[in-house]
């Protein structure tokens, strides 16, 4: 016991010594703890911004936008943008770790699903006043502000819209022609198309083209949601007969061999690779991948919104920006976010990524009006929604959904049991 005490004592001492003598150089941290003064317009202000890049071109573009903002803003603001790996969504967790550890950036690129976690730990700045007094407030559709409010679980806005993506179905017109299928107008036609498009093209007795490129790994909940709704289900209660029927359709597509055997672990990479190599005739993703598709196929790729069954739903992908509560210069931070939401940043970013702009002004630009995929995106927008954003959502997306669905696809669990597990994962056990 004595020994333990003396060790503990020695420890505490060495710790305090370490802490004490190293306190001084703490300012070497970039900007996050900068300037105690309020942001008088003329004083130089530094804002640290964290973001992830989906590919190296976007990364370069982001740095370009930062340069442009730093050069053009009139309030002497310097944004320092730091890139962090997306890491399958671990980006948000790293952001959280930093913020909880008292560090992290002033502003950051954002995904709605992590909002409750940050707001319940009081890490985000309330943007209500900033938005109310913002000259460009009406350039963004009010429904978007509502979505942002919902995500935070309160009447306040903590998240600044940036851009959205609507999921739709990519298809190969040449394959449709070869199989004698026309673009599905209803959900039943869609299921039928999946069947007809699955073909053995070279007659060796093996399937060469699958009708539907199913995403069974993380992220697959988004296209999957469309099936649940098409049968008349919803996310409030996943155990209704309608929702279970939607799940059954999803399972059947796999069991009947209309989707590749690898589906349970197919993520974004795999569904896109399968589609691009001609292994699948249809797959579900958003406009973000359209440029790449056109590069591969030219005219031989097109899109249609996920068709309506009893109901119609498609997933809205999102990217936003937030200001952290500990940011010392929220006015400056908001100016930067405004630049991204409705200013030059909005134009540059949406043109580069092909994402749907949130600014109505930018939506009117020719680049967006004449783009076929953008048209489908906007067409699908009215049926686009998000998953219920609860504190359980992230875990549900990351582990519950992929594992439960994989088990259902392999036939180990029935559709009804799987839906019960999914319901409990999201809303807790009754």
């Amino acid at each position, binding site marked *: 016991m004595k*020994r333990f005490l003396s060790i503990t004592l020695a420890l505490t001492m060495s710790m305090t010594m*370490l*802490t004490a003598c*190293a*306190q*001084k*150089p*703490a*300012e*070497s*941290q*970039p900007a996050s703890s900068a300037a105690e003064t309020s942001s008088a317009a003329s004083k130089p202000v530094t804002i640290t911004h964290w973001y*992830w*890049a*989906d*590919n*190296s071109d*976007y*990364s*370069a573009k982001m740095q370009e936008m930062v340069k442009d903002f730093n050069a053009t803003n009139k309030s002497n603001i310097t944004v320092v943008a*730091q*890139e*962090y*790996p*997306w*890491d*399958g969504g671990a980006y948000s967790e*790293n952001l959280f*770790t*930093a913020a*909880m*550890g*008292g*560090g992290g950036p002033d502003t950051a690129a954002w995904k709605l699903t992590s909002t409750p976690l940050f707001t319940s730990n009081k890490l985000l700045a309330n943007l209500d006043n900033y938005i109310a007094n913002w000259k460009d407030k009406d350039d963004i559709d009010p429904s978007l502000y509502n979505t942002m409010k919902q995500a935070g679980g309160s009447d306040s806005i903590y998240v600044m819209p940036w851009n959205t993506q609507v999921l739709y179905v990519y298809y190969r017109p040449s394959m449709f022609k070869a199989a004698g299928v026309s673009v599905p107008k209803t959900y039943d036609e869609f299921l039928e198309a999946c069947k007809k498009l699955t073909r053995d093209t070279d007659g060796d007795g093996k399937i060469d083209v699958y009708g539907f490129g199913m995403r069974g790994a993380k992220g697959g909940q988004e296209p999957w949601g469309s099936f649940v709704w098409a049968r008349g289900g919803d996310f409030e209660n996943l155990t209704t007969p309608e929702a279970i029927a939607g799940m059954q359709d999803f399972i059947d597509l796999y069991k009947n061999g209309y989707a590749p055997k690898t589906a349970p672990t197919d993520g*974004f*990479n795999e569904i*896109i*690779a399968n589609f*691009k*190599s*001609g292994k699948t005739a249809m797959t579900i993703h958003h406009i*973000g*991948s359209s440029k*790449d598709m056109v590069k*591969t196929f030219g005219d031989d790729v097109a899109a249609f919104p996920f068709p309506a069954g009893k109901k119609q739903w498609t997933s809205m992908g999102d990217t936003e920006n937030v200001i952290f509560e500990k940011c010392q210069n929220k006015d400056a931070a908001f100016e930067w976010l405004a630049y991204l939401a409705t200013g030059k940043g909005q134009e540059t970013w949406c043109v580069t990524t092909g994402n749907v702009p949130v600014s109505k002004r930018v939506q009117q630009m020719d680049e967006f009006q004449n783009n076929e995929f953008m048209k489908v995106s906007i067409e699908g927008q009215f049926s686009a929604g998000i998953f219920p954003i609860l504190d359980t959502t992230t875990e549900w997306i990351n582990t519950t959904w992929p594992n439960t669905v994989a088990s259902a696809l392999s036939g180990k669990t029935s559709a009804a049991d799987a839906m019960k597990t999914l319901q409990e994962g999201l809303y807790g056990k009754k």
Partner: protein
Amino acid sequence: MRESKNKTLKIFTLYLPLLVLLVFLLFPFYWTLVTSLKPEQELYGSTVTYWPMHTTFDSYHKLFVDFNFLKPMSNSFVVAIITTILSLAVSVLAAYAFSRYRFKGRKAFMMLFLTNNMFPTVLLLIPLYSIMRNIGILYTPMSLVLSYTTFTIPFSVWLLNGYLNDLPMSLEEAALVDGCNRAKAFLRIILPILIPCLVATGVYIFMTSWNEYTFAVMFTNEANRTIPVALKNLIGQLGVQWDLLTAGGIITIIPVCIMFFFAQKRLVEGLTAGAVKG
């Protein structure tokens, strides 16, 4: 006659098993290399090609010119080298104490060292970040050095302790009886014999800090990113940039292998340098 028999024996007891093992160990590396040289269409082609039909070095060019990949590499080197030297120095002392002295609390301390690495690091992340921030070394290479040494020291102490226990103690005792003090006996007798083990342990420490991701992503920023983080930045929501990622992998593997080629010569020097035979 005898010679040729020896040769066939050598083939079956040495070259053949070595070949099998090396093929297993090296195939993924070869595949990484091939992947880095393939254009994307060929990656997802209907037939698998074992050497690219169209070799392209675009990704290498892009990595060095557009990305300045040398920077994360030199960052990684700095962190790994400092960590290695620091951990080795500290661990050798502790391992010697554990091996050659019998003192109160010895077993308890050894257990403590062992337990240190049993606990998953994810759970230590938030408080560690906070500590790094408070002592002002967050976003400097020092934060990585400090956190890596914490996890390499215990293992290194144990490894070196194991090696020391396998070394015959007679030599040292002779030296001590001869009138050498402990420090001298250690420097003149033990250290030279221990060189191969120090090299091996050093390599272990180097690899650990070279490959670490979880701390690296939290404790660095753009200025001092290490390789694993730079590589992970190449995987976005829109998938893996195979060309850049595999090229980056190849670039990071080769210099370390060259380094080890020189280091491994030391692996056999121990006995002769220690003059055990003499």
